[in-house]
């Protein structure tokens, strides 16, 4: 078990080193800082809603930029290994291809976790500036955003295991957007034509319910919930994470299977 983990960790560590060199990530950090400044400005412009606006924009920024970063890293990091042939010197060593894919994902997950933590710190700084304390509801929302980012990373790496970055990016982006609007798809099932109902059913089956990680406006057990409200329980956060982990496991298993069958000519 130890050598297996050692090999996966070696790939993860190398992936982390590689990702840390990508300058776009630093640009995204700047964008997140900018979105927090925007949150302060927009909060000031609102009437007695400074705190809510600042918190909403801060959290939305984390989910949006975190997910876009996950797609960007996911579609490039695996593909460039094959395209640049750096993989030749790796998979010719005693490492299984599935270990390589898991290592890449783990490395990405570490990078994304650090990014989400930095985004969260920036947001908390912004909230402190607004004299808003960090409630358990915000912590839950941050955990949910982190789960969303890791799930989106698995989607991107799945497409990257058999496709080019351009197509993988489009597919991953589409899956993320569809996953984000699952309540609308559920509505379409109830009200749309037979054709729309069929498509909506398929979409719900093959796409992770990413909206779980951002439950504002969702109806759970007959109640409309807001992620900022205290009645988003720890149990809900745990179940959302379980849903995400299930999809991560399934997508990585498929990615490993597809990667296993590839020729590296």
């Amino acid at each position, binding site marked *: 078990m130890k050598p297996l983990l050692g090999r996966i960790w070696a790939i993860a560590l*190398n992936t982390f080193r590689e990702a840390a060199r990508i300058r776009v990530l630093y640009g995204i950090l700047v964008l997140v800082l900018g979105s927090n400044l925007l949150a302060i400005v927009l909060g000031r412009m609102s009437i007695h809603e400074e705190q809510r606006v600042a918190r909403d924009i801060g959290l939305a920024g984390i989910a949006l930029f975190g997910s876009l970063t996950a797609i960007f890293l996911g579609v490039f990091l695996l593909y460039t290994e094959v395209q640049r042939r750096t993989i030749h010197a790796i998979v010719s060593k005693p490492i299984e291809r599935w270990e390589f894919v898991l290592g890449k994902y783990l490395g990405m997950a570490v990078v994304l976790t650090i990014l989400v933590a930095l985004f969260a710190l920036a947001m908390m700084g912004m909230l402190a500036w607004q004299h808003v304390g960090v409630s358990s509801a915000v912590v839950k929302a941050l955990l949910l955003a982190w789960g969303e980012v890791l799930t989106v990373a698995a989607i991107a790496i799945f497409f990257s295991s058999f496709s080019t970055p351009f197509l993988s990016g489009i597919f991953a982006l589409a899956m993320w957007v569809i996953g984000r609007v699952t309540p609308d798809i559920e509505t379409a099932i109830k009200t749309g034509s037979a054709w729309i109902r069929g498509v909506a059913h398929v979409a719900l089956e093959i796409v992770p319910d990413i909206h779980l990680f951002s439950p504002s406006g969702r109806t759970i057990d007959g109640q409309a919930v807001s992620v900022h409200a205290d009645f988003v329980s720890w149990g809900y956060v745990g179940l959302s994470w379980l849903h995400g982990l299930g999809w991560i496991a399934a997508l990585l298993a498929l990615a490993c299977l597809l990667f296993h069958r590839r020729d590296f000519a």
Partner: protein
Amino acid sequence: MAALVIDVKDLRKTYRTPFRRKKVEALRGVTFGVERGHIFGFVGPNGAGKTTTIRTLMGLIRPTGGSATILGHAIPSRQARFKVGFLPESPYFYDYLTIGELLDLAGRLFGLGAHERDQRANALIGRVGLERARTQSLKKFSKGMLQRAGLAQALMNDPELVVLDEPTSGLDPIGRKDVRDLILELRDQGKTVFFSSHILTDIEAIADRVAIVARGQLQAHGTPSELVDRNKRLGVDVIVHVAADANVDGLTANASKIRRVADELALLLPADADVDAWLASARELGARVVSVEPRHETLEDLFMQKVGETVAG
């Protein structure tokens, strides 16, 4: 015969082109064996199937037919890869790493402990002459330095079998000699070396056994002495100095490969030519003999013949 370190039987690989789905046969039934402790030279022109064979053996490509074993394990085998060192063709490594970090990564993949990784990396960096580049990232390495780095990572696990795909490609004469010396040193340590090249002098200089591959098929296979009859005379190379305005038609009548530059005339006489009579004729024209040398069959002659046959076929 001792157990073969590499045993390839009727290996086949067929690709389909991306859009038109046209079949391309990269390997068309390749069969050969490599014995323990030998240096095995795998030679062929570009596109012959050398790299495809090697990538198939190393588990990078899945064969469409035939079989192969490495150290007794059917490919692709993780157990075998523990004992194999591999240098890919024109190696690409993570260019943000230093040589030490590259070797550390390789060592981790072989499951070596931290102390052992450190020891082996230091020894190998010295062996391939990259001490002075220790702190540089691989991005700043020349092609020759990258090739040396590639050799070092291939030896990190102290392998029983070393597979080198075009190890002397892109190296200057000193670099090529260093690689040849390293290969000989590895054989002296009891390791088996399988290397591909299209530089025939490299193969001829060090290989115990040679296989010539062209168009995805093995054309010849054996020891250099089995393949090349060094007693077989192909002709006689003659160089004379003769006046630039002298009529040399009588001298060149039976010759091939005639080259005349200023007062120097170089030509190849047939193997059965009467060299004494030819030299007498040359002296009558006032020519001065510079050299007379019989030409024997070389690996290059065999290679050109075999590759020529496949092209004609």
